[in-house]
């Protein structure tokens, strides 16, 4: 699964995700990627999210929308909301994987609860960051 989230210079957010699914999946199986609110979500008022991992669990926990909901209703900052969903809701329910997210201020969060996640990020005026493992 691949994905991207962005905040542009006008303050708008967007998210996109694409996948081939999982190896040897049942024909017709659809995971969280195309399910708005599970694997993909964007709202200028809160955040944009793209997820990757065990799709069925991400769907059951509406992972992407849950990050936004924590920001909207509990007033949590993006990092706290994303960490809670990925490291608690998903990790404690057999939902391995991670998410990338950006909020309306341009803050990025890229939490994952598995060994590695291919990810990269950049903010205007800063050097790009490319990482695979936690460190």
């Amino acid at each position: 699964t691949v994905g991207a989230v962005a905040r542009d210079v006008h303050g708008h957010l967007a998210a996109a995700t694409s996948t081939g699914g999982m190896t040897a999946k049942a024909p017709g199986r659809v995971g969280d990627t195309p399910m708005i609110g599970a694997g993909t979500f964007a709202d200028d008022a809160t955040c944009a999210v793209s997820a990757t991992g065990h799709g069925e669990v991400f769907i059951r926990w509406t992972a992407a929308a849950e990050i936004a909901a924590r920001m909207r209703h509990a007033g949590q900052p993006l990092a706290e909301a994303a960490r809670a969903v990925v490291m608690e809701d998903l990790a404690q329910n057999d939902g391995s994987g991670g998410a990338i997210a950006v909020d309306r201020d341009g803050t990025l969060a890229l939490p994952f609860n598995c060994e590695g996640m291919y990810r990269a990020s950049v903010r205007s005026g800063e050097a790009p960051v490319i990482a695979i493992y936690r460190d």
Partner: protein
Amino acid sequence: MTYSLAIHGGAGTILRASMTPEREEAYRAALARTLEVGEAVLRDGGAALDAVVAAVSALEDEPLFNAGRGAVFTSDGRQEMDAAVMDGRDRRAGAVAGIFGPRNPVQAARAVMERTDHVCLIGPNALDVARAAGLPFEEPAYFFTEARWTALQDTLGMRARGETDDDPARRHG
């Protein structure tokens, strides 16, 4: 105002023990290329929507990652692709599921968002929307990679032998 961009290329099996320096460098280079594609849009004052679609299209074109070219195979040896896009300005969204043919499924998802009243389309109608949008289609050989085909054979072999493992990455996209 400033811009921000993040991309991911999956969270499958990325065990340090199985990662060679050459392979890690290939992944890092692919991520860097993709990041530049998306950042170029934002650097020029472009929309976040255009940036994420450009970045994901570049990832789909990269056979190292499981989307578009290089997608994994189903148990019957086919490729079925899913994609979605969402615009934070107004919560417009588009998605496609189970499709095969468009070079960039994310652009098919965007076509659903921009050219129909619907959020998600599957099957022949999703492909019709992509064709009507003028999106490029590819033959099966374009999407095929030996590594994904070998992974399918390995997984089917394990199933035939009744073997299981607890690698959570087997459930990852």
